[in-house]
């Protein structure tokens, strides 16, 4: 009885249907446990969490240096109610480093990447926590102040991609956006 103390011996192993179910459940847990290490070695999408501590001011300086060296134009935002008006458009060298700042409320600068090339994308914040959310692909990574979060990323599809912020960062959070163009 579930509501009164047990006075008869109750310790016995599983049997019958319960044993079958336990076997199935353990096997399934085993499959799920193995999927993650398997994907780590054989799959192409992993979050390794590669990161370095960095002072926000230093990250800002690195980004400004990156923008000065790689700016190829200016991106003008056409969306009516967006907070971000204009951003420098930068094209990092294939296989090279790209810097992206999250701050209230924009992703700075806009990037132009080449399809099939691999980049080291450095993400950090100058103020609050932000969420790097690449749409419409729906790839999401956390961005923290004080941490240089490095994504080694290979764009495999062409087009215009919007970076949405998906970590709450104040009243302008919903309109915080940025751009990645892949050619």
């Amino acid at each position: 009885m579930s509501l009164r103390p047990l006075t008869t011996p109750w310790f016995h192993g599983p049997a019958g249907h319960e044993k079958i179910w336990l076997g199935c459940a353990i096997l399934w847990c085993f499959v799920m446990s193995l999927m993650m290490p398997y994907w780590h070695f054989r799959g192409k999408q992993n979050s390794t969490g590669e990161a370095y501590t960095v002072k926000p001011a230093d990250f800002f300086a690195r980004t400004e240096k990156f923008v000065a060296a790689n700016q190829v134009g200016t991106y003008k935002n056409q969306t009516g109610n967006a907070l971000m008006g204009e951003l420098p458009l930068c094209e990092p060298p294939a296989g090279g480093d790209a810097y992206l700042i999250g701050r209230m409320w924009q992703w700075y600068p806009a990037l132009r990447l080449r399809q099939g090339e691999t980049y080291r994308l450095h993400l950090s914040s100058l103020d609050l926590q932000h969420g790097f959310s690449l749409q419409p692909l729906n790839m999401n990574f956390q961005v923290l102040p004080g941490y240089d979060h490095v994504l080694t990323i290979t764009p495999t599809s062409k087009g215009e991609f919007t970076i949405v912020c998906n970590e709450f960062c104040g009243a302008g959070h919903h309109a915080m956006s940025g751009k990645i163009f892949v050619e």
Partner: protein
Amino acid sequence: MSTSSHNLAAPGTPGRVCGTTGLGVCLDAQRFIKLNAVCGIVFLLLGGIAALLLALTRWQTVHLLPVDWFYRILTFHGINMLILWILFFEVAILYFACTTPLNARLFSRKIAWASFLMMLVGAVMVDYIILAGQADVMMTSYLPLLAHPLFYLGIILVAVGTLTGVFNFFATLYVAKRDHAYEGSMPIVTFGATAAAIIAVVTLLHGAVVMIPTFTYSMGWTAQPDPAWYRLIWWGLGHQSQQVNVCAMVSVWYLLSHIVVGARPINEAVCRTAFVLYILFINLASAHHLLVDPGVGATWKIWNTSYAMYLAVLASMVHGFTVPAGVEIAMREKGYTSGIFGWVTALPWKNPAFSATALSLVIFGFLGGITGVTLGTQQINIIAHNTLRIPGHFHVTVVGGTTLAFMGLAYYVVPLIFQRDFIFRGVARVQPWLFGIGITLLSFGMSFAGSMGVSRRSWDIDAQGVYGPGAHLWLGVLGIGGVLAFIGLLVFALLCVGTLFFGAKIEQRAMFDWGTPPALAGSKSGSLANDHYATKGTIILALVFLACFAVYYFANWKALADVWPVR
């Protein structure tokens, strides 16, 4: 035992004999069960009103609240639902589980008062400072976001108050054992509650570790804690507290299936081992929130996210089988033996406590469990983190699962503890269905919108210019589900509060019978105790569950394989 049951072990302790169950009830425990349960339901109602406003804002076509109030109400909703309603009600459950089933009296009235008052003062403090606009930081209050010091102080008070109540629970267990208030092993309901209490202690200690330095920082006394450290420790509070709910909910499943149908665990040893697995492995779940964070490596993520090989998930799958299996055995023994599922149709679906339990189990398992394990898979989290898929998951665990189970429990707690029969019982029979369907629709709306990239905790999706009619449609489903669930919640709160004032008094007679399946001719209790192959219906349902799980799980790996390579 029958003659001494109202003595509650210690002579002279004020107690009464329940007119329905014949069990002894400690009047001290009864008073604090009442106080905590009523407060819980008040906070549930406050959180529910906030939920309605939020659903009507995220429903992009309605878009009710202005931007500052949206985030303010979202913070309010999270705190009231995930912390206040749940903790108050759980303390009520703990006080019940350590007294009546063990024939014991509550350890200390003073400690119970101290616990209750600390929790209440802290709760009022937090709610006030949020509504005053001084803490628009979300429930998680991620640093460097900073709220008014009263926000952190209120949470610390609630946590310390709860810990004090949990101490009273453990002290009651100890005294009951020492004074031989009961013979043998504690019942499964108390065992499950004990597991919940142990997890609660670990959880609340995490809360203290993270909230105290944040409070001193907000006062300007200490430096700002590291944001990544904050996330790690905060989720030791944030996720683990939800596992207290899982434990309490499973205990309620065992309790209600026993009260309504007469079910008992088919194997006590396995059920209890499953609870121990929760205690041992569930604290690793904090990692589920850091799967795409910087600074934590893949090995750490994989080990922790799998709860060291999904052993806590295994525990849920054990309970998910054992509870319906116990019901099936009880029904077959009562004579409902036709076919594989004859016992299912004969179940008392009009009994609101039963329908709440059954819906809670199905919603928690099929929707909450499957989505939770999948979203918490290290790599799959890349296509889910901070999107609406996350609240789409936890609204079917903590709301469709825990809250619905607790509502079911109230249909017995209110008559048995407050000693009044429910008013408008016809409405009560519909309430769990309304709430369950509403919350399921809400979750579907969130999950599909999230799959289209719509983020959680966002006031508006149109400013980005990237979301199409599909996302808007699913946000509409979210809105409609939210309205339905709110009506279900409002009906529940009004029924409970109305019953306290206007319900027919029970005194020594039995409470109104919500409906239990009668034993048919030729039935024999315990006749299937040694038939280990009698649960044909349950094993089939469990295998259907596993098939759904596998399909959803691998479909998500496929979706992940379609995005850009990243490491």
